[in-house]
């Protein structure tokens, strides 16, 4: 292990000019954060996708496409289809999940239910005027795309792990990181894909 690190330290500066900054950066991060509540410092450890998407060049569209594909495949492999085979829950509960932006911060209790925070970034039901635009509008989601199994599976997968389709998607991986329960995700599915949901009127 130690030997490997040594080699990396010796070789890296030849290729990457900023490795000194990298070491200083790691030290700075280590010294600048503390665990609080459920948010412990190990949250700063990055997985492959997070590493890849922390490079401004990647965000500017100059990332390595092969690496992106590897990340997408790995994330696709993490997605579990619902054990019961049931994709749709109750759209009314789904609306509540979409409205709430709570959960997973150091002020949240571990046992408290998380929200999806969907309206933070998406238009969903038109009657809610306070919505963000970081993500596309989901108004008439099912009405526009149809209610077929392919749409259902795609939507389920996107909610579970958006990085399966786009390595640097801005959408949280709700299933992958257990941010939402299976039932909550079924309810959000219904909000988007139940023909009776106000979203599809």
């Amino acid at each position, binding site marked *: 292990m130690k030997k490997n690190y040594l080699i990396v330290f010796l070789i890296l500066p030849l290729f990457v000019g900023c490795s000194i900054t990298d070491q200083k950066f790691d030290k700075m991060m280590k010294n600048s954060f503390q665990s609080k509540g459920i948010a412990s410092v190990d949250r700063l450890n990055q997985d492959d996708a997070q590493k890849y998407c922390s490079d401004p060049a990647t965000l500017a569209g100059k990332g390595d496409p092969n690496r992106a594909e590897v990340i997408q495949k790995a994330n696709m492999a993490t997605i579990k289809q619902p054990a019961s085979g049931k994709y749709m829950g109750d759209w009314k509960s789904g609306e509540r999940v979409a409205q709430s932006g709570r959960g997973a911060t150091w*002020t949240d209790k571990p046992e408290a239910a998380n929200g999806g925070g969907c309206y933070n970034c998406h238009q969903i039901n038109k009657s809610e005027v*306070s919505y963000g635009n970081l993500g596309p509008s989901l108004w008439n989601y099912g009405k526009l795309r149809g209610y077929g199994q392919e749409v259902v599976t795609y939507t389920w997968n996107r909610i579970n792990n958006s990085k399966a389709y786009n390595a640097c998607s801005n959408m949280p991986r709700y299933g992958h990181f257990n941010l939402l329960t299976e039932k909550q995700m079924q309810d959000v599915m219904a909000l988007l894909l139940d023909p009776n949901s106000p979203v599809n009127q």
Partner: protein
Amino acid sequence: MDHKRRDVLKYSVIFGLMASAGLITTAQAQEWNKAAFEGKSLDDVFKVLGAGKPETSSAITMIAPDIAENGAVVPIGMNTTLKAQQIAILVDKNPSALAAQFFIPAGSEPFVTTRIKMGQTSNVYALVKADNKWNVAVKEVKVTLGGCGG
């Protein structure tokens, strides 16, 4: 920049002491219509104030936004051509309808603005007593959820 404003300010503190020394009457400081503020509904408050069924008046202009970015601070005010003696601000869907009331002596303008809390989207009323007659104006203010919501 702000220094002009600051110059205007002169502190004179220690009012508790003045009150206890009888320099102001405590009765004067403590007139507060408890029953009106404890009224739950609009009608409760109208009743306590003796406003009965106030008439809707176009002579009252409400100063309020259509949408409030946060319910903790909603600017509400009113202006009127009526000779207002008393002005009350009420919020239909707050736990207690009356937010504040104001008394306008002769020589003061029939105008006031303040900022209130609103728990949810609601109609807001400006109730005005002028020439011993009660008038009212209404406006809906939408309260939105904002930020990350966490």
